């Protein structure tokens, strides 16, 4: 009898617990930021859960952006998609066409959430706005910036302008190398991203149809004089031994070359600023930053926002979609943005956040972040800097990187770029037939 009572009590308690637990709206969030950021994101999510007693967000690190997207697609096929997926900028067109996501702006309108859009920085919103609708929430935003070893440059008797030109890079590299101060002038990892950024900065669309924004892109502009100019310059730096190849998409090796003093300059993501500041202190050199270089005969248009955004998948009950949208908006609240920026180095994408950071003296302590933000804010809103939309962006990057490697190995620039263009155009055509028809 006693035992029976106990059993009943336990069952009753259990079902209460179950009912209580069920009242919370359960949301899953998959992201693609490894390393120490996993814990950082978990803390942010825990804070959200704490302040939103009716919502329970479960967060999971799913590997690279590609892995995360593939996992989300597989889950969606099985009818069990995570509510929020973290995806990279170049996946935008793919995400749109995959059909598993709903435009964020629709959700925000539908549920009447209040978002002060005018406070968000434009380049970030522009990238993810397609045919006038914002599809996802820009979250971890970054772009390329030039880092330099001030101590080395001073020793060489040269000075870095805030907005250097291609020619400046060559002369500074030569000066450093001739005096034997560093083995190489500059480095950046062999990545298509740099070519894309330079083309945008020179005001040239990467693909046709207004960078793929007024319609599906059918052609890549790799034979534009700008692209050829960039590659000729890159090749010249390599041939003169002024640029060292740290390997394909090998970001850490490029940083290593710069930090260890083997090169005087580095072009890398703005999200490296904190890391670089710390490394410079450890290695005992003074760190400087500048805008990425452009050729002196081209006007500067600014950079394309890189990084990732948060996407909400469709096919969930209203309560869950609403909670997902709420979470996504919360993640870009001023307070969260400041915390995110200070913790990871990604841009604070809210204007108010910049003002607050300014008042706290953050940029006096870390002036290099100011360079990064200035470069972004001086960006002109044209299709080139809005960023290209391509369904086969990843494949295009592979072909572009193949072409860069071929150029460094001696293939003439126009020939290598024409080869890549032919393959990428075929890919664009195939993609269009598959999804656009």
């Amino acid at each position, binding site marked *: 009898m006693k035992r029976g009572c106990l059993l009943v009590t336990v069952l009753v308690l259990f079902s209460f617990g179950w009912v209580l637990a069920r009242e919370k709206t359960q949301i899953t969030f998959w992201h693609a930021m490894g390393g120490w950021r996993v814990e950082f994101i978990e803390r942010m999510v825990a804070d959200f859960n704490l302040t939103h007693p009716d919502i329970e967000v479960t967060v999971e690190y799913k590997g690279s952006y*590609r892995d995360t997207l593939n996992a989300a697609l597989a889950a*969606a096929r099985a009818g069990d998609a995570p509510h929020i997926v973290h995806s990279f900028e170049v996946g935008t067109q793919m995400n749109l066409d995959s059909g598993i996501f709903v435009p964020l702006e629709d959700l925000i309108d539908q549920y009447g959430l209040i978002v002060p859009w005018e406070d968000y920085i434009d380049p970030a919103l522009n990238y993810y706005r397609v045919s006038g609708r914002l599809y996802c929430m820009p979250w971890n935003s970054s772009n390329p910036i030039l880092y330099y070893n001030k101590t080395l440059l001073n020793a060489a008797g040269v000075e870095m302008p805030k907005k250097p030109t291609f020619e400046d890079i060559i002369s500074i590299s030569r000066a450093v190398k001739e005096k034997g101060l560093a083995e190489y002038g500059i480095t950046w990892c062999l990545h298509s991203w740099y070519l894309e950024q330079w083309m945008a900065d020179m005001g040239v669309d990467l693909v046709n149809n207004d960078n793929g924004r007024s319609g599906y892109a059918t052609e890549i502009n790799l034979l534009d004089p700008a692209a050829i100019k960039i590659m000729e310059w890159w090749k010249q730096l390599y041939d003169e031994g002024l640029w060292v190849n740290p390997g394909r998409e090998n970001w850490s090796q490029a940083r290593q070359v710069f930090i260890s003093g083997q090169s005087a300059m580095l072009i890398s993501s703005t999200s490296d600023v904190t890391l670089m500041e710390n490394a410079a202190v450890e290695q005992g050199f003074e760190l400087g930053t500048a805008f990425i270089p452009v050729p002196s005969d081209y006007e500067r248009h600014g950079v394309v926002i890189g990084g990732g955004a948060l996407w909400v998948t469709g096919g969930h009950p209203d309560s869950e979609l609403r909670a997902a949208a709420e979470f996504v908006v919360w993640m870009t609240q001023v307070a969260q943005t400041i915390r995110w920026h200070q913790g990871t180095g990604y841009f604070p994408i809210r204007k108010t956040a910049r003002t607050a950071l300014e008042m706290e003296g953050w940029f006096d302590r870390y002036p290099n972040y100011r360079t990064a933000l200035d470069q972004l804010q001086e960006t002109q809103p044209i299709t080139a800097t809005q960023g290209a939309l391509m369904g086969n962006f990843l494949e295009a990057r*592979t072909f572009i990187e193949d072409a860069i*490697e071929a150029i*460094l*190995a001696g293939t003439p620039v126009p020939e290598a770029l024409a080869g890549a263009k032919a393959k990428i155009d075929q890919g664009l055509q195939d993609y269009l037939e*598959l999804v656009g028809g």
Partner: protein
Amino acid sequence: MRSKFPNRWLPLVILLPTLAVCALFLYYPVAQSFSWSLYRAAFMGLKRLYVGTQNYVRLFTSPDYVHTIGVSFLFAGGVVFLGLSVSLAIALLANQKVRGARIYRVSLIWPYALSPAVAGTIWLFLLNPTSGVVNYFFETLFGVKPDWLTSGRLALLSVTVAAVWKNLGYNIVFFLAGLQNVPGEILEAARVDGAGAWRTFWKITFPLLSPTTFFLFIMNIIYAFFGVFGLIDVMTKGGPVNATNILIYNLYRDAFQHNKWGMAAAQSVILFVFVVILTLIQFRTTGRRVHYGG
């Protein structure tokens, strides 16, 4: 003698669990690969378009894919030849009766326990052009700093050496086992008859080892074609300019990076056919040109 079952359904029932597992995890995916290879598919098959044999036609008319086939065979040849000869030489040394032989043997097998990603990272550090150990020695000794991983031929050589090293332990274990099975009396008889070490090895040990060698030959080919994905991904990502882009890496790239699932399925069918041929050769030749002792 044929064993008899009480009724004809029992064997089927006993086999059922295995068949079910095979059907679910082997036959069904294989069938799906065959069907997907006739489509242009994206987003894990959420969108697809029937294209018939277009994927195959494109693969075999693409200079890049033909190049990839060439690279794969070159790589496999290097891995098999280098891998087998080096590990046989080491196994012979490790088979000597010296003090601490066991310690040597265990330490030789060790690299095999590493995951490909770890092995790849180790080689990445060693071959680092500016701060790697290998180039430190090359610069001190010869005054040059080769770009091991970013210049075409050297990159293929580097990943071949890394792949061989990674699989050494596996090969050595089998060669050691084979060597232990070579009857001591025969070797002693040869020595009594005045045969030198060289002659004894080629006339007695090597023929008696041929089952092991042949087994390892097949296993190493399979390893070179299917087991080195991790190394390639960590060390070169198939570059520079596809110099180390072997078939399995190209397949991975098309499926998981380029979102071209149909194209990748066609490539997996091609690899499937290749494995079928290899298996047939193995079945056919086993027992013929190979000398099984005893």
